[in-house]
C-alpha cells in the first residue's frame, strides 16, 4: 500500500511548511498545497488526496465553506480542520457540517499525528466496508 496522501489548504506558509516537515517524517506524503479555499477546491478535483488539512480563517471563502463544497462534491472526502480559533462554538460549527476534528494553532505535533492516524484508520475501514 502506498503512502497516505495529504493536501494542505492554508494561506500561511508557516503552517504548510510545519505540516509538511512533520507528516513526511512520519510516513505521509503532502501532494498539494493551496493558499485559499478556491484553489483548494480546484486542486482537490485534480489530486484527490486521501486527507485534506484545512485552515478556517483564509482570504476568500473560508475553511468552513470550503469543507462544505468539498463534501458536496465528494461525500467520501476526509477532512481535518486547523484554526487559531478553537473555542467550543467553533468546534460545534465544525462538527455541525460533518467534520470531526479541529486542531488548534499552534498545534502539538503528537496531537496532529494522532489525529491523522485516526483519520487514516477510519478512511481505510470505510473503504474496506465498501468492498
Amino acid at each position, binding site marked *: 500500500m502506498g503512502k497516505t496522501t495529504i493536501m494542505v489548504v492554508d494561506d500561511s506558509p*508557516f503552517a504548510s511548511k510545519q505540516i509538511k516537515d512533520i507528516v513526511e517524517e512520519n510516513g505521509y506524503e503532502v501532494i498539494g498545497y493551496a493558499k485559499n479555499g478556491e484553489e483548494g477546491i480546484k486542486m482537490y478535483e485534480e489530486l484527490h488526496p486521501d486527507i485534506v488539512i484545512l485552515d478556517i*480563517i483564509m482570504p476568500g471563502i473560508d475553511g468552513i465553506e470550503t469543507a462544505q463544497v468539498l463534501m458536496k462534491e465528494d461525500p467520501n472526502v476526509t477532512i481535518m480542520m486547523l484554526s*487559531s*480559533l478553537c473555542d467550543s*462554538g467553533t468546534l460545534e460549527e465544525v462538527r455541525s457540517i460533518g467534520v470531526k476534528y479541529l486542531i488548534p*494553532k499552534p498545534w502539538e505535533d503528537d496531537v496532529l499525528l494522532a489525529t491523522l492516524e485516526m483519520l487514516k484508520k477510519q478512511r481505510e475501514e470505510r473503504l474496506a466496508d465498501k468492498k
Partner: protein
Amino acid sequence: MTDVKVEEIFDCAFVSVTKKIASLDLCRKSDGSLKIDDEYAGSVYTTGMFNSLVVMEFSPAICKHIIFTMTNGAEVTDEEKLLYMKEYVNIVCGRAISEINDETGSISRITIPIFHSLEEIIGEADKKSKKIVLHYETDIGIICVSVYYNDFGK
C-alpha cells in the same frame, strides 16, 4: 466580562503563543512611554459579541526574530515575511478570542490580519469606547499591543 479579564486574556495569549512559536520571553512593563520607531503595525478586527480592533507595533528586531524562528532560519522573500507575521498575529489573536468566546459563551470571529501604516487605523480606533494597552520588553526589542473595543454586544 470585566476589562481586567479582557486584559488578562490578551496578556496570556501574547506571552504563551510568543513563547511557543517564537521562543521569546515577553516581559510585561507598565511604562506607557515605551516608544517604537517603526511606522508599520499589524492589526486585526474582531467581529460579533466582542467588537474590537487589535493593533500591534513591533520593533524591527522583534519582527526579524519572530520570522527567523518561524522559518528555522530559512531565506524568505519580503512578501513571505509578511505572511509569517500575519500568521503570528492570527494565532495570538485567535487564541485570545477563543478564550473570550468560551468565557462568555458567545461567538466572535477575527478578520485576516493586515500590516499597514499606523495613521490608517487611528480613525477606526477612535470609534471604540474602551482601550487597553500591553507593553512588552524583551532583550531584543519591544512589542506594544493596543486593544480598542466596545462593551459586549455593542
